[in-house]
């Protein structure tokens, strides 16, 4: 179930703009200078808030940090991707031509 409101003690994710577009460091490439420097941090929610609302969190290091609530119980979302046919072909070729343990090849 997707939660829309966070309550004190919930594990949440906040978002904050650190440097606005146009206020970036000198010498960053043009495509980077055009966009803001953004930040995300996870922590325990201090008080009740809805998604998109300002909230403060207590981080794992014990800091109190304010930002906009963007996720409640955020998940990582990364995985192993999809099978890669090219690598499957490499694996099959290696096993066919080079026989582990025998130290020789065809």
């Amino acid at each position, binding site marked *: 179930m997707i939660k829309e409101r966070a309550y004190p003690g919930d594990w949440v994710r906040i978002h904050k703009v650190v440097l606005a577009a146009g206020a970036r460091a000198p010498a*960053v490439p043009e495509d980077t200078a055009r966009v803001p*420097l953004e930040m995300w*941090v996870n922590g325990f929610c201090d008080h009740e808030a809805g998604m998109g609302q300002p909230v403060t969190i207590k981080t794992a290091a014990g*800091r109190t940090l304010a930002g906009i609530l963007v996720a409640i119980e955020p998940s990582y979302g990364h995985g192993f991707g999809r099978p890669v046919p*090219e690598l499957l072909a490499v694996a099959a070729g290696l096993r066919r031509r080079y026989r*582990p343990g025998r130290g020789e090849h065809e």
Partner: protein
Amino acid sequence: MSDYQAVMSRKAQIIRDAVGIDYDRFRTGRMTFDYEGMMAQTGYGLEEIIAIQRASGVGGTPLLEMRNLTQLSRATAPAGHGARILVKDEAGNPSGSFKARRASVSVHHAKRHGYPGVLAATSGNYGAAVASQAAMQGLPCIIVQEVYDSRGVGQPEIIEKGRVCEAYGAEVVQLTVGPELFYVALKLLEETGYFNASLYTPFGIAGIETLGYEIGREVIERYGRAPDVVVVTHAGGGNVTGTARGLAKAGCTATVVVGASVDLRGLHMASDRDFNRKSFTTGHTGFGVPFATWPDRTDVPINAARPLRYLDRYVLVTQGDVFYTTEALAQLEGLERGPAGNTSLAAALALSRELPTGGILVVQETEYTGAGKHPSAQLTFARESGVTVQLGDPALNVPGKVISIPDSPGQIQVRDFDLGAVRRSYLRNAVNHFGLAQVSAGEIEFLTEETRADAQFVLGVLQELGVECPG
């Protein structure tokens, strides 16, 4: 003055407080400094570092002989060629990479000097290493990472590294692309009073010396002589510097130290657009070249990682070569590792062919693999980011556009990166940085050590650049 400018103007003081080293006492002139003095006087000798690492479960990793990969290399080598390939399985360290060696000494130092916590600005394995060591020492930890592009799309490899830092109890501050990562880190150091567990302190680099030392000692003990070649994945320069120094301390002074990077030339590392068009977030030319041609671009005033002082040779491989090698390591040796840490192993498959069968070639690291940092995760991400993935000659690789995975091992070749050009570039940077119009004999000697070149070469380049040299 903007907050950015204000914080950056306080950089020297913030770093002095957060690292606890007065670098000025090692400076001997406008440009020169006493490198060996700095390395020696930071308070930890090799034996002491071994003891610190032993107490935190770091080091002593197995040195494995790659019998099947050696055969694979010999099958594509001229007759009588194909050196024995050994791999130091650094994934066996507590946080799954050699970076635990660096972090163990930094966190020990922070604890000993009473810092209330540790901070590291890193998107790589070093974050996990600092978080793991901080967990062991009971210190709070903050890791600052560059993770996302402006669409909020993150590099899977870095998202995994953020996850593992949180698993070790660290606070992870995740940012979009840009060098202002450093500004955020400085602000946090000021706010918290934490120790800056920089990758580039003398004790961080000294932590890697044990890696070269263990390799040297074990090869001599097992085979009765020093390794012919040690291949090191080269990025920020610490791996090369620490390993080479450790090899020398083990008496392996004739061992050839080869740096290897993934060729990502053409991609801008601070570009929002290019950020997600690479499959490797470390071990590549985007770090390897700038850090060799000018090491002092870091979060400390004098970088202890000075790869140009130690590199005998610098070679490049492609992203496709490394994915192939990662697959071969799993399929033929039963070791699922990397992929970025296998950059040096990919180079080794080619370099082994240059040596006789009696030769010994050591690959000095592996790293853990997992969700996100895995060939299938990274190649899926590459495809989704518009990169073509194909089977074929790796010479067809185009960074950010095409990943061409070899279909036979003979296609893996290293491309030599001319160290003469790196040295030239270093000297040009020195001239520009310090505004050198003339140099003293002492400065020439320093530049000779910095570039590991002979005095004639240094003089020649300086004169070409219009610098007045002593007659």
